[in-house]
């Protein structure tokens, strides 16, 4: 019987010479990557003290490739960290009943907290953690990127865990998989597609925070880390527009490069984890993945790793079977719930008390009212960004989405635009504002829109391209006039995707306000009235009471907006406009 076994891989023995080229390419590529990582890590551990910390980096273009590589390494370190966090946090939230009650609302809030407002606190902490080494600053930067990626990914993985097909869960339990086996053979594979796609999106968003966290004014200290973000900041301070443009060009190359070499192959590879019965019609394809698949090196590396699976299974077996007891004492569970709730309530109550006392004793509650007023100004800007981006990008997005040829060309462009850190463009726009004399109160809207508007565009493209052809043909057949066609077909059909785009764009705009309401170019600083400027000021002066108030008030605005506006729209879209 064993001899009858067929190996589809038998074709691998008859290889064309092309595969040797693939082997060589993969091998050389892997070796170069290894060298780069080793080289960059040795740079990150340079001796360093707060007093003698470089406040800026050299703007010599020759340094740019090295800086870019350092930035890239930070991005991937943050991604790895986010992944570990996601696995632990999402699994705990999905598998522990009580933990879920805390972790998920917490994640919801964390998603709305303006990350950049936290930098002053984290930087101080990390510097204290690694005295005499640049590693502290490095960690703070990585942490800032991490906070921009992790929440999204954790949410995505959590949803995939709790929405796992019931039969897969039952089959795993009946097969008596151990917790370890369950995690790696069922949970991770079934969450792979949302994880990869969310990772890609979050990674794109992370560039923004990388750039913002490399050159910082915190607690009256100016810090700069060797990186492309710090380079842009330095060039902008010096008014060297050509160097800014150079960095922008390199950034575009880097964004595209990471997409082609990393995310594209990963998304194409992740297709194998699709649970749906049939293959999706338009599975992503990747040349890099094809190259890897043609080469035999990945398989050669994979084979010894595959041998480790069984020993690992054995080692991890004592963690137990992924099963929960059917019978449990109701009284004990109730008592546990009660105790848990009480402890939690007391902890939250005490925390709130401390915050209120701190604010009352330091700056007084009038400051909170002041921050709320400033918040209104920023809120106005965010609203204008969303409205204008909607008016501009919805028609364009629909046009692109309905033309398959154009959308195939436009999709990657829009993806690059979305992941391109908008703060790279700030010097250009600031120079423009200075030249024209337009106030940042108005100009800030443009700066905030630079990064956030794309979410609306690509969600609308996705929504429009998903409109069933039948419906479009029916509309054409009925000869719907333009106005009716929009009102009765297009707008309802794209509504759910638009809401997703809108909520992300608004969140992005809030976050961007912290860097967009104060900008510096060639020694001149422009300031807008708003909560973002308030937070930025507070962090650079090291005013922790103001930072705290600013962050809390901004989080409040974002949470309130989501609850009272976006969530409702989302509920309506689910109920009325879902195409399924």
């Amino acid at each position, binding site marked *: *019987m*064993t001899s009858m076994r067929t190996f589809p891989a038998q074709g691998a023995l008859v290889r064309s010479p092309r595969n040797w080229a693939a082997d060589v390419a993969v091998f050389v590529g892997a070796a170069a990557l290894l060298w780069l990582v080793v080289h960059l890590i040795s740079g990150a551990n340079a001796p360093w003290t707060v007093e003698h910390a470089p406040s800026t980096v050299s703007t010599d273009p020759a340094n740019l490739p090295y800086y870019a590589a350092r930035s890239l390494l930070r991005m991937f370190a943050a991604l790895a960290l986010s992944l570990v966090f996601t696995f632990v946090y999402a699994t705990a939230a999905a598998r522990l009943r009580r933990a879920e009650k805390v972790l998920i609302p917490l994640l919801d809030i964390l998603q709305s907290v303006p990350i950049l407002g936290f930098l002053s606190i984290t930087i101080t902490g990390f510097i204290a953690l690694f005295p005499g080494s640049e590693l502290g600053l490095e960690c703070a930067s990585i942490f800032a990127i991490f906070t921009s990626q992790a929440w999204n990914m954790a949410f995505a993985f959590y949803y995939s865990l709790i929405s796992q*097909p019931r039969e897969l869960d*039952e089959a795993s339990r009946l*097969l008596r*998989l151990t917790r370890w086996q369950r995690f790696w053979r069922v949970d991770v594979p079934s969450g792979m597609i949302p994880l990869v796609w969310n990772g890609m999106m979050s990674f794109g968003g992370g560039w923004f925070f990388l750039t913002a966290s490399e050159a910082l004014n915190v607690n009256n200290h100016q810090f700069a880390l060797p990186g492309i973000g710090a380079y842009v900041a330095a060039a902008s301070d010096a008014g060297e527009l050509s160097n800014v443009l150079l960095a922008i060009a390199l950034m575009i190359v880097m964004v595209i490069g990471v997409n082609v070499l990393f995310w594209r192959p990963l998304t194409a590879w992740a297709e194998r984890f699709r649970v749906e019965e049939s*293959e999706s019609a338009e599975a992503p394809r990747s040349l890099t993945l094809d190259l890897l698949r043609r080469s035999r090196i990945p398989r050669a590396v994979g084979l010894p790793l595959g041998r480790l699976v*069984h020993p690992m299974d054995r080692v991890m077996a004592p963690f137990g079977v992924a099963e929960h007891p*059917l019978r449990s004492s109701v009284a004990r569970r109730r008592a546990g719930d009660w105790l848990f709730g009480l402890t939690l309530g007391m902890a939250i109550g005490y925390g709130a008390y401390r915050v209120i006392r701190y604010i009352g004793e330091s700056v007084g509650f009038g400051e909170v009212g002041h921050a709320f007023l400033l918040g209104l100004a920023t809120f106005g800007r965010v609203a204008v960004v969303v409205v204008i981006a909607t008016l501009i990008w919805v028609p364009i997005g629909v046009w692109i989405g309905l033309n398959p040829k154009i959308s195939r060309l436009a999709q990657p462009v829009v993806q690059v635009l979305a992941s391109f850190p908008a703060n790279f463009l700030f010097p250009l726009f600031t120079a423009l504002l200075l030249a024209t004399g337009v106030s940042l109160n108005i100009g800030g809207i443009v700066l905030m829109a630079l990064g956030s508007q794309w979410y609306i565009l690509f969600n609308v493209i996705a929504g429009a391209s998903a409109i069933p052809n039948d419906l479009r043909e029916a509309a054409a057949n009925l000869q719907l006039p333009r106005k009716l066609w929009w009102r009765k077909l297009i707008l309802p059909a794209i509504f759910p995707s638009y809401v997703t785009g809108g909520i992300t764009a608004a969140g992005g705009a809030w976050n961007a306000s912290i860097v967009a309401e104060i900008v510096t170019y060639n020694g001149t600083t422009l300031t807008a009235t708003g909560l973002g400027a308030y937070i930025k000021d507070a962090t650079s002066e090291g005013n922790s009471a103001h930072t705290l108030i600013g962050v809390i008030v901004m989080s409040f605005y974002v949470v309130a907006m989501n609850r009272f506006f976006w969530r409702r729209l989302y509920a309506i879209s689910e109920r009325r406009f879902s195409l399924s």
Partner: protein
Amino acid sequence: MTIDHEVLVSVEHLSKSFTGAAGDTLHVLDDINLELRAGEIVALLGRSGSGKSTLLRTIAGLISPTSGSVRYRGTELNGANPGTAMVFQTFALMPWLTVQDNVELGLAARGISPAARRTRALDAIDLIGLDGFESAYPKELSGGMRQRVGFARALVLEPDLLLMDEPFSALDVLTAENLRTELMTLWTGHNFPTQAICLVTHNIEEAVLLADRVIVLGANPGHIRAEVPVELDRPRDRRSTSFSVLVDKLYELLTGAEPGITEPEPTEATPTTRPLPNATVGGLAGLVEIVYARGGHADMPDIANDLNFEIDDLLPLVDAAAMLDLLHVSAGNLELTAVGAEFTPADIQTSKQIFAAQARSRAPLVRTICRALGASADGNLRAGFFLDLLARGFGPEDARQQLDTAIDWGRYGELFDYDTDTDEITADPAAGLFTPASA
């Protein structure tokens, strides 16, 4: 096959209820007593809502009983039943593992070494006729082949008891028949690796074809209604008289009133004592038409066969037609009533009028809605009002289902309409339910 009557699983006084989102209790199973012995195939047969899947899952140790117990070889379960393996309706294969890896998964969970795993998996793959597909992914296989993987994955563990949850219902008719036959050949042979099989089905013929015992479950809440032994020789012949006698008997058990329980007449009943069957107007009109075309008489097994209907497709239509007095049901036979004979050949407006008159007088929930609308101030009532009313007898989902059916019938009969946005039910002016007070 030797029958040694060793009890593998015993279910004692098992009841199961779920708590709904609104804190309401939904009784699914009530006082089930059942023993599964070595050497037998037991079929759990019932309509949807009879809790047969829930029963199977409590036997598998996947869900806990609310009261009562499930024992495997005398030990009460506190987790997945170690003596069982399950074959799922939707296959439940890991799409990212090859056929071989899927089959090996349960062995890996038992810590068996890769080499031993491989041999055993290949044996199971061989047994179930999957040679040559070892390195394929489930996605690349047809439904029938996927279910073979499901069988191989279960059998490789050599469980005492093989559980099957409607294993053939996701397959096309021919593939299902082929797989059933092969399974029975293996069972009657000598190297079948399990001692007993328990399957859930809503296909009457499948139950008679496979089982030694058919447990007929009744609904609301699920309970054992009858136990029918099947003592036909294998391989069984569908065309034999004894076969069709059993099929007719099971049809009768599933449609007729239960002994000892008197159901109120539709004209007397309340919406909670006589729920509306989950049937669309189109479906039930189609059924009446078929009976009309056959000269006013039809045999239910024949119709089910001809239309390739399973009982959950057919029985709600039969119940609805009987409730509206369009068909008369007795012992597995359908007969056209006088109203039915008038209804079918009529033109669309007349048949709507007939339907409206029948629904208004004989469908309790439709009648209640019509009366309430007539008594209302302006001929409008919120749907929530009726949902509250239904909440006395149904869980939230079933209540919604009842209301949706009533709205479907009412709309078709032009009795009333429903507006999703305002959640209001409005009397149709033409139906004359409601006369505006001319003050």
